[in-house]
């Protein structure tokens, strides 16, 4: 009997984490607003139930996908990129080398048992969900790419300089289920956030 309960608990364990979100960088943004629809993190259990019905048909092998929001425009306010304070008595010419990584442009989220590859330097879904989603070429990238931008400006004494980023992007999300020999082995929600434009704002304030 104990063995039976143990096996049942083991079987139910993945479902206990059904709505835990595994996400890369963009979830840390101060604010994300979609022009229509909802972010994956805001999906209710009722919505999940109705969307899962779209992927419950058994399949011999591979992913079954239902896209809820397809390339929906979104705006965001990101993090503060840097903050510099001149506590001296003379103005300082400050040179900043801003390095932006390509992986910061594509953010992924997954719920349920879909999961993200934690060992990758660039975010990827487990079990090659990307190929089942038939993403357009702009979502494809193979290695860590970096871009550098130089900023040079004068900072007066007693002045703090902050650089903020806000911008626009596209969100694609939905639910997916993976089958192997007609058995469903993974199920959950997925989301891809693709940054198209970043606007930078430089602020100076007297402290």
């Amino acid at each position, binding site marked *: 009997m104990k063995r039976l309960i143990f096996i049942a608990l083991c079987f139910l364990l993945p479902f206990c984490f059904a709505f835990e979100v595994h996400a890369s960088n963009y979830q840390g943004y101060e604010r994300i607003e979609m022009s229509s629809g909802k972010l994956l993190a805001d999906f209710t259990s009722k919505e999940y139930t109705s969307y899962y019905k779209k992927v419950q048909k058994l399949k011999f092998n591979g992913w079954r996908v239902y896209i809820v929001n397809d390339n929906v425009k979104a705006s965001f306010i990101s993090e503060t990129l840097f903050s510099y304070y001149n506590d001296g008595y003379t103005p300082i010419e400050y040179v900043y080398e801003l390095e932006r990584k390509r992986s910061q*442009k594509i953010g992924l989220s997954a719920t349920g048992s879909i999961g993200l590859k934690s060992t990758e330097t660039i975010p990827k879904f487990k079990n090659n969900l990307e190929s089942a989603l038939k993403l357009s*070429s702009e979502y494809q990238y193979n290695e860590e790419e970096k871009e*550098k931008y130089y900023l040079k*400006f004068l900072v007066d004494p007693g002045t703090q300089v902050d650089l903020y980023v806000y911008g626009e992007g596209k969100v694609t999300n939905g639910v997916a289920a993976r089958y192997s020999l007609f058995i469903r082995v993974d199920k959950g929600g997925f989301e891809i956030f693709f940054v198209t*434009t970043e*606007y*930078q704002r*430089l602020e100076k304030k007297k402290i």
Partner: protein
Amino acid sequence: MKRIFLYISLLMLSAILGYIIFRMKPDQEKKVLTVDTEYAYVMKDDAIGTFMMYVSDETHDICNENRYMRMILEDKDKETKIELSLLDIEIGHEEYYLKEAYVKVFISFDIPIMTEDIVFDDAYLTLELTDQQSYEVRLGRVTFFKDAHDEQGLNWTSLSGIKQSNDLRSRIYEITVSCDGVTEEIEKIDVGSKHLTTFSLDQQNLIITIEDADYLLYDVPIVITFVNGERQVIANFRYIIDYVILKESGPMINVYTLD
């Protein structure tokens, strides 16, 4: 037995044919793309400028700064010409244009110092490589402003810029300069664009609107000329970083074949 030999022969023949067809497929032509852009920089000591282009093969010599002999910036009429000192070449993100992949290439150079403003209205960049190869690519418009050391008539507190709504190109439409007030009356404002700028000023914000044109514009200085003749320069600031430039720049793209 004869039938088995026939099947094997047919299989081998089709494999050989397949291999020949694969070998006959022409190699993809190597290309470099530029997008018409308005580049504007202030001539200051140690200032760095960056031109942008896209290359289909990042192993090509054009992406290797050690293979460069010299780099010449000139106007189309060849009357204005200047040799630039190459600093660095860096590879950026990948984009797609007509189903072909290109990597963005940043060519950094020392901003030259001259006594007067200089404008290359229809700017071309000639890249001379060590193996006698030379490529001339169109940049758009390049302006170098002389720095100003006049008293500051405007004490700015923030800089930000946006694109025109629904414009997907990487082009600034409006720059907002927050300030503590302006002590002198402003006569005109220049951001290096050959197109008109208009401005409005209240106590807190100077709003500069830039006329639309078929050029990218994302990194500019602000040159303010006051009625008393003094000039204030707010250094270059990268207002926009776009990651989908080729897809949205269609007619502004120039295509060149690489050897």
